[in-house]
């Protein structure tokens, strides 16, 4: 059944999108489709999870061969946590929005990161509530003005900084207009063991696409600054040890990080010389980006993966969801022995 004729790219699609033509979210869905196709991802192992919002609708629009769960607003992280406990063999792809994650779901986001739930956590960040017609979200620019909702007086939440602070071991930012970077980061995130956070600026063409908004297409096209050139080297690649530089590495230099599955991310450092393996660096870069409203994209922080939640719970190798009969129910003997202890 599964190992029938090899799948074509179309096979990784989902239903037709119902988002606005030009919505940034659709292009992210397309990159997910491409990456799944390129990696030959087994769709039956993938679990698509989301909250509520335009962004959260998108799991219906990619990987039709995968189970999907469009849950409730802001609570995708807990649902994903439960799913990964039930079956740690799943490849979980969570899709959320800046409202879904930064407002109502903020607590769950931070705690899921802290628990290191193994999943790819994608925030399709447009600075507004799209589905409810354009209110400011918590990531909206300070001082920004919107037609119906006036001026935003509050400082933006930086969901990458929040992830680093919460203990994420893989944190990246990208721009839905930068297809190839989104693809590379997606591949790296899927290869990463543990929570991988991808905060992708994904313009809402209907409610927040004015050039002066840092979440707009024009702005992204103009101002995106890539921190690195990213290349993914499939498992089997044997790195030339020479090449790997010692920290700190200077412009043009390269680091290669081996991922859980034996693949490598190769990072060619660009002018800012950001070393994602340094936490303080990550703080600095993100502060700078916020202060000067820079759209810095790429791998912001990376750390040797710590134990994932299922690992630290030392669960049986068979996924809990697949346990049957005796594995789930102790013997009659066990019960009878126990009963004696209460007498």
């Amino acid at each position: 059944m599964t190992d029938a004729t090899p799948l074509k790219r179309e096979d990784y699609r989902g239903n037709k999108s119902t988002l606005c033509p030009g919505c940034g979210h659709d292009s992210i869905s397309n990159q997910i489709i491409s990456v799944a196709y390129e990696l030959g991802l087994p769709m039956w192992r993938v679990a698509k999870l989301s909250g509520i919002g335009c962004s959260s609708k998108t799991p219906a629009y990619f990987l039709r061969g995968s189970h999907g769960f469009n849950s409730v607003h802001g609570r995708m992280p807990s649902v994903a946590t439960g799913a990964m406990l039930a079956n740690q063999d799943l490849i979980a792809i969570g899709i959320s929005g800046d409202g879904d994650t930064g407002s109502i779901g903020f607590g769950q986001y931070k705690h899921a990161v802290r628990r290191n739930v193994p999943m790819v956590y994608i925030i399709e960040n447009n600075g507004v509530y799209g589905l409810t017609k354009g209110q400011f979200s918590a990531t909206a620019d300070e001082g920004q003005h919107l037609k119906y909702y006036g001026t935003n007086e509050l400082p933006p939440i930086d969901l990458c900084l929040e992830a680093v602070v919460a203990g994420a071991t893989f944190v990246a930012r990208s721009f839905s207009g930068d297809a190839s970077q989104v693809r590379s980061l997606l591949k790296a995130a899927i290869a990463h063991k543990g929570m991988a956070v991808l905060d992708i600026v994904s313009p809402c063409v209907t409610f927040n696409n004015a050039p002066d908004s840092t979440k707009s297409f024009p702005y992204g096209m103009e101002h995106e600054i890539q921190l690195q050139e990213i290349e993914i080297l499939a498992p089997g690649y044997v790195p030339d040890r020479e090449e790997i530089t010692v920290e700190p590495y200077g412009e043009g230099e390269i680091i290669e990080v081996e991922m859980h599955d034996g693949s490598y991310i190769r990072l060619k450092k660009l002018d800012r010389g950001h070393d994602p393996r340094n936490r303080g660096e990550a703080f600095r870069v993100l502060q700078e980006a916020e202060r000067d409203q820079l759209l810095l994209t790429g791998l912001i922080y990376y750390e040797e993966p710590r134990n994932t939640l299922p690992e630290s719970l030392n669960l049986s190798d068979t996924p809990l969801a697949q346990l049957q009969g005796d594995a789930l129910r102790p013997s009659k003997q066990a019960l009878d022995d126990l009963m004696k202890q209460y007498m």
Partner: protein
Amino acid sequence: MAVELQPEVQISGYKAGVNDFALMVATKNGSGSQTSNLVLIRSLYKMGIPVSGKNLFPSNIKGLPTWYTIRASKDGYTARRATTEVSVAFNQDTISEDIANVPEGGVLITNADLKYNVAREDIIVYELPVKEILKQADFPKDFADRIANMTYVGACCFLFDIPLDIAYGALLDQFNNKEKPAKMNHSVIELAYHWSEENLTKRDEYRVEPLNLTAGKMLIEGNDAAALGALFGGVSVVAWYPITPSTSVIDNIMGHMKMRQDPETGKSTVAIVQAEDELAAIGMVIGAGWAGSRSMTATSGPGISLMAEFTGLAYFAEIPCVIWDITRIGPSTGLPTRTGQGDLLFLYYLGHGDTKHIVLMPSNAEECFEFGWRAFDIAEQIQTPVFVMSDLDLGMNLWLSEPFTYPDTPINRGKRLDKVELEEFFAEHGEWFRFRDYDGDGIPYRTVPGTDHPRSAFFTRGTGHNDMAVYSERSDDWVQNLQRIHRKFNTARGVVPQPVTDYDANKSIGILSYGSNDAAIQEARDRMVADGIETNYMRVRALPLSQDVYDFCKKHERVYVVENNFDGQMWQILRTEVPGDASNLISLALGDTLPMTARWVHTRIFQTEQK
């Protein structure tokens, strides 16, 4: 406006005596008195005397007053008694109140070191010079408190004829056979016993004599039984957030985890996660249920309120999971350490829109165990959240119980298709759609993520969908889907535990109740006979209700709906659902924060029947 507390009018029965009296111990919370009280209970149990204990503790860690009542009953009655013939007054803060509350002819045992005066001729008083008694040996300072509380155990042993070796056995049980603490505590008991022997003359009529009525029975807390039920029910994912009085359900699951761990590797078939709050806990439970594992949480009122949106999703998206509500009295934070059955209506309707849930209501430890495992079968059969409503009294107090019977049916995963079954389904039906009603019982077939089959996937959502699990805003799709879910709900009426009924066609009065009230009602029914009140009794064990319940209501002139909440919530449900004229249903609702007494049931029915 007079407060209607549990009244004490002149009705038959309730005369105390040998092997039949109640004892109340008043101490400070966190002073270790819990151990002393449990030793007394276990001692009576070891003597074969039916016994029960109720812990009235404060929502506080140390220092506030706590009362513990112990009842010995040769007739095997375990309900709380409002009157306690014997009072042990060891708490300075409440001693005057405690003295005042001793019934006429009752017994008072005091710590003579406290300041108080007993201006009562009508009671028998025994005073223990605790310091003096303890002076006779030297004990580690930090044990001073708990050891002081052992002195009343010693005195009770003497006064009520509890052999010292029995007490020692009880201590060993209490400290899981660790001899050191057992010995140390026992030496105090002995000191107090001998002091009493020499200085007190027994002047009251209350004593115990060995019986053999507890042989083969256990003493266990409902929450422990619930935990065992879950473990034998195959629970695999437990997500929770601490809240009294549900916390010990999870503590006990942890305590028994070994049963589900590989002896070599320690690898476990149960994942337990302390979530950041109840929204996250239920979210994890629903995610785990969706992904195909048996998942549960345990909480209490405030947690239930926070789970409303998520359980509505699970109901509509048809995801199995189990939620224990160990109720405490509300509204709001209410009294976290007091009991009540006030969540019933809220659980039944939990969630906005037209939502209705299955609620199981165990009455005793055996049912906590049975419903503990059965809840998972029901959840997977009906593909919906299943609530189990216990309460603080049932959950956190010790109950005399038969040993639990091993599940009589294998684990039932319901209409869940694995790779092979899915293939067969396609072969047979030429199709499979997640929400199509192939069997007419409203229950569709489901698959879970990670099923290695190209057509196993479907999209789960809380938004409107057709029977192919495709988003739809069509009115007919919506109505069809809800009608099927209602069909499913009707199917559930036959799947949930059916009511337990004691019925005799010649009796015109019925009593209907549920949950932990059973003990009080059983006793009251026996005693009311002397007042010429003969009753039938139906103990409802689940919502939705089955036809039998409606019939029971119809078959009686009067049906007393007895429950421990303020608004008469089961009565409200019956008024709504019993077809036709339901005016023969009389609500007896308590809701005074305490476990129900037989006397209250007896009195209320007696008074009503007078009219």
